[in-house]
């Protein structure tokens, strides 16, 4: 439920890859989306979490969930929702597997040379 401060509107919210879409509850097409890169997901008070972006940290998109449990689920899911998070995971696993087995697991996929999968190439 995205909120303009103090005003909560009921919305259907859907996480699809690294986008958070929101819909009016009776419509099939979204009214808006948030790209979830370079963002911070914060658990706020009970049932509430917020998303803010690196270039405008004071601006928070607030969401209120039905239960605290749902709220936690959302926070966990959203924290892992960015492409950058996946990239870091991939680099981590690649490195660990290489250390343990001496083999580069990306070779079989033909993507070991790609710059985006190299260690130390990426920050943040």
């Amino acid at each position: 439920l995205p909120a303009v401060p103090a005003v909560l509107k009921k919305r259907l919210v859907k996480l699809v890859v690294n986008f958070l879409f929101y819909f009016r509850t009776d419509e099939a097409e979204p009214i808006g989306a948030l790209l979830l890169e370079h963002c911070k997901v914060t658990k706020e008070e009970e049932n509430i979490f917020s998303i803010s972006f690196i270039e405008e940290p004071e601006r928070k998109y607030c969401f209120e969930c039905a239960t605290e449990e749902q709220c936690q689920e959302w926070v966990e899911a959203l924290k892992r929702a960015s492409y950058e998070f996946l990239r870091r995971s991939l680099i981590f696993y690649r490195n660990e597997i290489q250390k343990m087995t001496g083999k580069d697991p990306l070779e079989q996929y033909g993507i070991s040379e790609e710059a985006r999968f190299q260690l130390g190439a990426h920050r943040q």
Partner: protein
Amino acid sequence: MKLNERSVAHYATCNSPTDHAGFLRKRVERHHHHVHHHGTSYQRHWFVLKGNLLFYFEECESREPMGLVVLEGCTVELCEAAEEFAFAIRFDDAGARAYVLVADGQAAMEAWVKALSRASFNYMRLVVRELEKQLEEACKSLAACHRSPWRSSSSSSSGRRRHLSSPALQPLQEKPTTLENGYSAWSSGGCVTGGATYTDHDGGQTKPPPLPPRRRSATGSATGSPASGVSPAMLESPVSPETICFSKLHDWYGQEIAGLRQEWQERQKRGHL
């Protein structure tokens, strides 16, 4: 459809890793049915690929992108256009428009097709899941190894052969890649077989992120419980209801629409319609 424009523009232009960049000519799509293939035109833009997002800019110094293509549920194919070095991004959702792009040469075209066909978030997620499994198996094998009579005394990895069974994993493929005359049809989940050596890496600099969550079944409810992108069904099939969302994103940038409208008006004035 609303979008967090400032954040998107910031992400597009900040110095976070760029997966590919370069000039491409983009075919201008006509919205009028009675203008057929007469006078197809292309506009040259600066394209930047970051993750699963393909941004394009008026110029490479432009501070804001003109447009954005979300590379999910799409295939990247060489295409038969009058232009040489043309390729197309086509979406599984029939309603979404295709993007026809033209590179400057053979090498550039191949590099773009390769980069774009592996750009999707879903592809990354599949690879990460596979690696996660491989790591688990490697850990188990290692544990078993230490219990066996002939143990390997060294615990360091460099250069040492281990008696570990390498899991017989198939390379990831959603659709088979077929090669004809050196050209191939790439799917967004496809891959190229072919060895490549992995050279230097520095150890220990990356902090291990937590393991990705286990799959959970999608539960829908009107109050917004997560219809999370982790459901198995979404991985098997192209993102179908969601591509509606992405079509909207493609048409989002107002500048491009304004540009197209202006161009159409100019053509009308010149009597080309």
